[in-house]
């Protein structure tokens, strides 16, 4: 049973560029959430996708956008990259039918470095 997978594992971009990160959820999960983990910090919630729509969003600017596909996989897009966007980006998947007992399982992350 494959867990959450993310690609690429590492990425280097320059300021002003755009980046797309990808995530495939754990088998049986239909919901994908994205988090940003800066060095030495806990992960911060960016947004969650369910039924191909953004359902909830954290305190991140519109430069951060996403998409969910019919097969439940998801993309995170970041435009106009800033140095401060350098971080580990984590994808987590869950089963929305669990409702209030939703448990999220995390992928290995994509480490983004902005120069």
């Amino acid at each position, binding site marked *: 049973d494959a867990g*959450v997978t993310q690609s690429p594992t590492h990425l280097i971009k320059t300021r002003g560029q755009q980046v797309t990160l990808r995530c495939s959820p754990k088998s049986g999960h239909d*919901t994908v*959430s994205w*988090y940003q983990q800066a060095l*030495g*910090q*806990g*992960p*911060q*919630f960016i947004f*969650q996708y369910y039924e191909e729509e953004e*359902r*909830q969003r*954290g305190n991140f600017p519109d430069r951060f956008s996403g998409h969910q596909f019919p097969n439940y996989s998801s993309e995170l897009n970041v435009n106009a990259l800033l140095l401060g966007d350098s971080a580990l980006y*984590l994808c*987590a998947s869950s089963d929305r039918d*669990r*409702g*209030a*007992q*939703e*448990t*999220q*399982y*995390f*992928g*290995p*992350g994509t480490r983004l470095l902005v120069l």
Partner: protein
Amino acid sequence: AQSVSQHNHHVILSEAASLELGCNYSYGGTVNLFWYVQYPGQHLQLLLKYFSGDPLVKGIKGFEAEFIKSKFSFNLRKPSVQWSDTAEYFCAVTAYSSASKIIFGSGTRLSIRP
């Protein structure tokens, strides 16, 4: 707004010592509570979770946590640590009414001396 505080940034213990990592959260309503662990070079893994019922929750690898509602706390414990427990530990909370958004603490780095 919800928040999670982990007061110990770095804890150093010898093997076989007992462990307790503190976690306090700020939220007035019903919450779900989690401890996640990040071993060196590995992804974030769920250690244990509390949704309701018995406030003493047992997780994997001999870890347990106790939910004390009056203290807004969810401390992680292990009676005897091993070198392999060296990792970063994150306490996290979701509001019962909004289980999608996990709020994480800043983490506690645990180093075990062999």
